[in-house]
């Protein structure tokens, strides 16, 4: 049956050519949809907060007595989609502002801070003092052009509750 064999080979070839394109399209449309949903979700959670309880002050406001304190830390690993990375590579030829990476990093930071706020509330702290953000690149090979890229964003601070 040479016919079936031939079709099988043709099928494999077509699939191997098409699969990167399919992944690329999924990355483009799926990634945009997914990240838009993440941003809206974050915005809704931020709006639901009565007030911002995170600050970068190093000591509590005068006149307040602290009864309890502890270190709070939360992290998030944010990754751009393949489409965004591709976009960034094209843009970096001409230089300038790379919007696609801006978006995901901005989301990651805001999400980390929002999680710190929620962590403080769930542990019964009134405020978080001396909030710090640290960003580090993980998952990139030696030359720095891995197909996958991601950044870790860590937000930490001292949670305090007042009398």
């Amino acid at each position: 049956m040479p016919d079936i064999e031939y079709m099988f080979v043709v099928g494999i070839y077509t699939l191997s050519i098409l699969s990167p394109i399919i992944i690329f399209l999924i990355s483009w449309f799926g990634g945009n949809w997914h990240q838009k949903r993440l941003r809206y979700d974050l915005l809704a959670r931020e709006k639901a907060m009565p007030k911002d309880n995170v600050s970068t002050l190093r000591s509590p406001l005068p006149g307040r007595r602290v009864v309890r304190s502890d270190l709070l830390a939360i992290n998030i690993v944010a990754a751009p989609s393949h489409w965004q990375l591709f976009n960034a590579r094209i843009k970096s030829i001409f230089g300038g502002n790379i919007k696609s990476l801006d978006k995901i990093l901005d989301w990651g930071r805001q999400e980390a801070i929002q999680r710190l706020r929620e962590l403080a509330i769930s542990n019964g702290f009134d405020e978080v003092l001396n909030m710090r953000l640290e960003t580090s690149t993980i998952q990139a090979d030696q030359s720095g052009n891995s197909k996958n890229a991601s950044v870790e964003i860590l937000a930490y601070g001292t949670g305090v509750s007042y009398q």
Partner: protein
Amino acid sequence: MQPNTGTPQVAQIALSNIETIPGRTIIQSLGVVTGSTVRAKHIGKDIMAGFKNIVGGELKGYTELLQESRNEALQRLVLDAAQRGANAVVNVRFATSAVAGGAAELFAYGTAVIIQ
């Protein structure tokens, strides 16, 4: 039940990332204490992260991994502080660096002190 603050809860050691433990007085400094750990996730999680990378967003597997390792690094820091006879660690800082693909070094350091 222990509260989940994202950091290990040790009854004797108080942690903070400002110069003092708010509301307490420092009476003695015992020097720098450190804790570090290098960790990697098993390959299944790496592959899942690779798939998740197609659409971007959060990579939960790696978030989890780094959270676990940070806790371990902090636990070593606390152990170091306890061995010196401290009852608090102030000015705790974190640092992260990638050693190899999928493995990360987490580092925590601070000043061990005795508080009243």
